[in-house]
């Protein structure tokens, strides 16, 4: 069965060019960059080149790039490192729609005695900038606001946000895991102090991430160990993965503008096709600016997990913010924060496209999805009743 993989916000296929680039660093250039010999020196050089490429993708300085093991580590290192570096300040501002890597730190920080403000979003997932302004105080150590939302693809106006925060002299961190590689991220223009990104969302492997730290930002190290990464993150460099990430960053940078237009074309086709063919569908964040590759929608009267499993029977891979798929009993906190009614949120499905998706695949989904939704609606007790109400 052909696999139609439309879950690229969850993870992506490693680009074969990336794999190729990585392989010699397992078998030939396996040295430790800290070692005083030729194999070590070669590894060190490769790491430096990769750092350069990542810096270019973000338009940053190479010495501002710290390699980590994943986006979650970057988020933890940023938030806890900044708080630790200014222990007298006890307030943090973030949003209600952050990725769990940030969001799930909130209860922990509260327990440690921090005050945390979670900013509201509106029905379209847009941030309330007035709320942001009002929340900043002299006690605020850090503002952490994501660049683009992983579930809905809604993009926050990061330039404006960063300016508001920096005008108050507060440290600003952004989780840009979903933004990097999908939209331009130019740190020479964007006044953020810290930024998290992840390799496996841009066709590098899992297990490698980056924390960008602007020169002069005070951050306590999260991993204490050797002198690696200028003492900002101990642990022997993961050379093959760093090399892979460098290659992935290079490809991303070269293809970004063309690729994001192509993906937007496919996404729009998928979105319009679904709205044309299937009644009672809501597109989440429709009124907001969104990532070009992401479509999150709610199919009313059906439940997301059932939909995913029937799609999966046809080889189509997507994801859902419904309760059942996550093992929790409530729909995703993002959809709840947006005020999407539970009745719809349980039927949410996210299609996220990537480099390897084609137009034929979009057509394949459009051919099959209406039948699946219809089949589940026929089983649903509410669909029939709705029909009766509209008849009467």
């Amino acid at each position, binding site marked *: 069965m052909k696999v139609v993989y439309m879950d690229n916000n969850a993870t992506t296929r490693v680009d074969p060019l990336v794999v190729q680039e990585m392989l010699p660093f397992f078998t030939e250039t396996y040295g430790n960059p800290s070692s005083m010999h030729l194999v070590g020196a070669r590894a060190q050089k490769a790491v430096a080149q990769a750092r350069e490429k990542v810096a270019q993708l973000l338009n940053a300085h190479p010495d501002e790039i710290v390699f980590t093991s994943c986006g979650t580590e970057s988020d933890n290192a940023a938030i806890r490192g900044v708080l630790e570096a200014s222990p007298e300040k006890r307030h943090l501002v973030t949003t209600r729609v952050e990725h769990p890597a940030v969001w799930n730190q909130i209860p922990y920080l509260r327990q440690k005695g921090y005050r945390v403000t979670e900013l509201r979003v509106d029905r379209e997932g847009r941030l309330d900038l007035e709320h942001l302004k009002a929340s900043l105080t002299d006690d605020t150590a850090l503002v952490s606001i994501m660049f683009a939302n992983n579930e809905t693809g809604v993009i926050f106006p990061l330039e404006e946000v960063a300016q508001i925060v920096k005008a108050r002299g507060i440290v600003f961190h952004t989780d840009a895991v979903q933004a990097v590689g999908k939209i331009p991220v130019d740190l020479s223009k964007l006044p953020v102090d810290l930024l998290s990104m992840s390799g496996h969302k841009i066709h590098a492997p899992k297990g490698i991430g980056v924390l960008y730290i602007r020169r002069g930002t005070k951050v306590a190290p999260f991993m204490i160990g050797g002198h690696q990464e200028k003492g900002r993150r101990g642990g022997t460099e993961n050379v093959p993965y760093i090399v892979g990430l460098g290659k992935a960053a290079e490809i991303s940078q070269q293809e970004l503008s063309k690729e994001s237009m192509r993906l937007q074309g496919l996404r729009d086709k998928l979105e319009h096709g679904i709205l044309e063919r299937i009644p009672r569908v809501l597109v989440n964040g429709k009124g907001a600016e969104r990532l070009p590759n992401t479509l999150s929608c709610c199919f009313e009267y059906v*439940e997301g997990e*059932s939909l995913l499993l029937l799609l999966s*029977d046809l080889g189509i891979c997507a994801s859902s913010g419904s309760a059942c798929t996550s093992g*929790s*009993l*409530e729909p995703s906190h993002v959809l709840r924060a947006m005020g999407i*009614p539970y009745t719809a949120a349980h039927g949410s499905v996210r299609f996220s496209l990537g480099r390897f998706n084609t137009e034929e695949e979009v057509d394949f989904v459009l051919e099959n999805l209406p039948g699946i939704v219809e089949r589940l609606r026929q089983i649903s*007790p*509410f669909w029939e009743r709705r029909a009766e109400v509209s008849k009467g």
Partner: protein
Amino acid sequence: MWEYTEKVMDHFRNPRNVGVIDDADGVGEVGSMACGDALTLYIKVDQQGRIKDAKFQTFGCASAIASSSALTELIKGKTIEEALKITNQDIADYLGGLPEQKMHCSVMGREALLAAIANYKGQSRESLASPLVCECFGVTQEEIERAIRENGLTTREQVTHYTKAGGGCGSCHERIEEILARLKKEVPVVALPAQRRLTNLQKMRLVEETIERQIRPELQKDGGDIELVDVEGNRVMVSLRGVCTGCPSSNITIKGIEQKLKEMVSQDLVVEEVRQ
């Protein structure tokens, strides 16, 4: 990704008895769209009080659809009295088991069945009169108590897995803990109707619990200990530790353990000692 059995996937992909019975004798509606799953069960009952036909409509995940389908298969042809004896565990067993976090789907089936039978008898559902404990998911005290008793639940997480109660805002956690504590005192949780046919899994769980709660503490008082090695059909294999090992009277201990297990779990059990 959930691990669903083949049987669950089969009943999800090809649900049996989907639909509406227009002239149903009993209709049971449980759940809601806001809660994420809902089931409407229709039953047709003949003159002898036998369920001739059953149909359902379900909104929910794969295991909710599969549980509904299994429920209709289980009750068709049964008398009302027989159907009343079907528990959520029977539904789960029919499907070869459900992930624990999905047990609430089987409980939803059981609740729909009780509702449909009450409707058929012209009664209102008792559980509706019972006080609401979890507002997020509309779960009453009676529903929680039934789930605890019938499934031998001991923790709040389990109560959430089985009834959804407590899976939202969390403000009912304390009340759930209270109910758990009260039932633990009142009736031993493991006391089940004597004639009940136990599944292997249930039997195992009950044996384990009885040993943990009642037998081990006794032995430990005398400086001994016990370990459950295996349960095979009705044979319970244990090994004794500490002072009990090699104790000439350990035969007596074994007899005592057997007595207790017979009383708490099933009359058919035999206990054997495994020497290590």
